[in-house]
């Protein structure tokens, strides 16, 4: 390597206000013109971003003790149930949770106008939220019922903890069937009538560090408009998925678990969403800075939409039935153009992840670092990567009725 730079050196430059920071979009032309070595010599940090629906998200809450005390066994925020199976007033509210009274898909396709993601948006907006809790009563926690309102600044902790965000690549969804279907990948018209994709392509964090060489445990990031950290690898982390020559996974691969203080985030980057016929979720804005330690890292950050491919998956039969395989691959430049060519058929495309939002996040992070407000962190540990040979498992199929001698 001709360029060798440490995170410590980068931070020293950030503190002096002298770090050179570019977004993953801005850096592609520079590397093309000057090559990765010269570009690496002049750039210290590349910022990335993504702003898409991420169902595996939620918030740990501690709502404070009531008088008399209650050990919550059931809790509802604006009617949306939170998990109360931990200590007395600790809760976890998931992004896809729905009120018991929600009609769901009884009037198909259901609208899912208010769920956990919307409660999180209301909390982070500072709105008052109705809080109802129930219990059976104990000698030390005698109260059986509470009904009050809470606001984010009135409770002890609200820690956003998302078990799986920042998916490295994702399916392009289509519908091979003869009727419209309503999925978490949007409304899919029959006979390959449209296609939805959901990543930020060249701006997406894990496309810019495909082997997780700089992103690791404890990496400080932009999360929901505030500062967060990488807590672990995400659930369904699958870094050993097949890759193209430039190291980019061809299929959904790496994921990240993220954590951060909800109290310093904002509703611009945490939005409750309603997917017709599917459910409620949360749109999460996140951005990860990539320290340009050497020309190899620089080369990864120069990846362009046309070099990233994604599998086209049928959501009529194949996805619901957990069938492997796909209908072919398309690249993100094609997807973003609004039209893909699949098996001789032209299919109109649109995204569910906001590219404009991703760019804005990368620019905000660039500004934070450029102005010395945001320092980079050395990972406490590496996350599992391609060489760890992780194999994604599906649910074991066992028939409990069947005896071994049968």
């Amino acid at each position, binding site marked *: 390597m001709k360029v060798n730079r440490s995170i410590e050196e980068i931070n020293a430059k950030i503190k002096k206000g002298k770090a050179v920071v570019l977004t993953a979009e801005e850096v592609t032309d520079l590397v093309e013109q000057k090559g990765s070595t010269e570009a690496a010599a002049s750039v210290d940090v590349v910022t990335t971003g993504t*702003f*898409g*629906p991420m169902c595996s998200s939620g918030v740990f809450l501690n709502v404070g003790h009531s008088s008399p005390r209650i050990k919550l066994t059931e809790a509802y925020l604006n009617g949306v149930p939170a998990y109360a199976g931990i200590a007395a007033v600790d809760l976890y509210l998931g992004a896809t949770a729905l009120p018991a009274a929600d009609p769901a898909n009884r009037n198909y*396709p259901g*609208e899912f*106008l208010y769920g956990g993601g919307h409660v999180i948006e209301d909390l982070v907006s500072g709105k008052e939220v109705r809080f109802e809790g129930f219990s059976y009563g104990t000698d030390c926690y005698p109260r059986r019922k509470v009904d009050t309102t809470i606001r984010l600044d009135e409770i002890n902790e609200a820690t956003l903890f998302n078990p799986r965000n920042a998916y490295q690549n994702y399916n392009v969804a289509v519908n091979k069937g003869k009727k419209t279907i309503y999925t978490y990948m*949007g*409304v899919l018209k029959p006979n390959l009538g*449209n*296609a*939805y994709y959901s990543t930020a392509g060249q701006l997406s964090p894990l496309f810019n560090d495909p082997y997780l060489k700089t992103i690791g445990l404890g990496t400080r990031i932009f999360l929901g408009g505030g500062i967060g950290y990488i807590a672990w690898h995400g659930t369904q982390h699958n870094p050993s998925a097949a890759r193209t020559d430039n190291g980019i996974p061809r299929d959904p691969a790496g994921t990240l678990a993220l954590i951060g203080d909800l109290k310093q985030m904002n509703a611009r980057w945490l*939005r409750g*969403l*309603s*997917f*017709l016929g599917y459910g409620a*979720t949360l*749109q999460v804005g996140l951005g990860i800075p990539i320290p340009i330690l050497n020309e190899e890292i620089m080369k990864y950050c120069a990846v362009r939409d046309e070099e990233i491919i994604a599998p086209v998956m049928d959501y009529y039969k194949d996805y619901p039935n957990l069938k492997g395989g796909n209908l072919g691959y398309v690249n993100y430049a094609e997807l*973003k*153009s*609004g039209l893909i060519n699949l098996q001789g058929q032209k299919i*109109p*495309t*649109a*995204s*569910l*992840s*906001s*590219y*404009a*939002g991703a*760019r804005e996040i990368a620019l905000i992070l660039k500004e934070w670092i450029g102005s010395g407000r945001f320092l980079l962190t050395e990972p406490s540990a590496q996350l599992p990567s391609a060489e760890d040979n992780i194999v994604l498992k599906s649910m074991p199929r066992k028939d409990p009725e069947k005896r071994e001698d049968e």
Partner: protein
Amino acid sequence: MVKQKIVLRFPPNVVEQPIIYMMIKDFDLMVNILRADINPRKEGRLMMEVNGENADYQKAMAWLKEQGLIITNLEQQIIWREDRCTHCGACTVICPTRALYFERPSMNVRFDQDKCIVCELCLRACPARAMETPIDNTLFR
């Protein structure tokens, strides 16, 4: 000449009258129906583009009001709440007239009201519910 996109709301007692025929024959207007939701003996709604001489157009509107029809501008039927829009683009492939579209290369979502035919498909296809209609549509279903 006038070229105007309007919405006519019919009270139940007018639904069975040949309103469009009269607009063409008596007022010499060119009428292009964009969407109609009319049921015998129930309230109805008709969206159309109207072309013609200004004087004829004004007379026709006055006559329609006399008949008890409520006239509104089509432009006011679908509202894009830009503050709620996350620019994901989910609507752009659902909108049949490309009134909702991606501005490239910025990938910002834009709404061209002139192209909107108030089909309302965007209302529920938008995950952030950034598309709104001021009318309570349940009245017409």
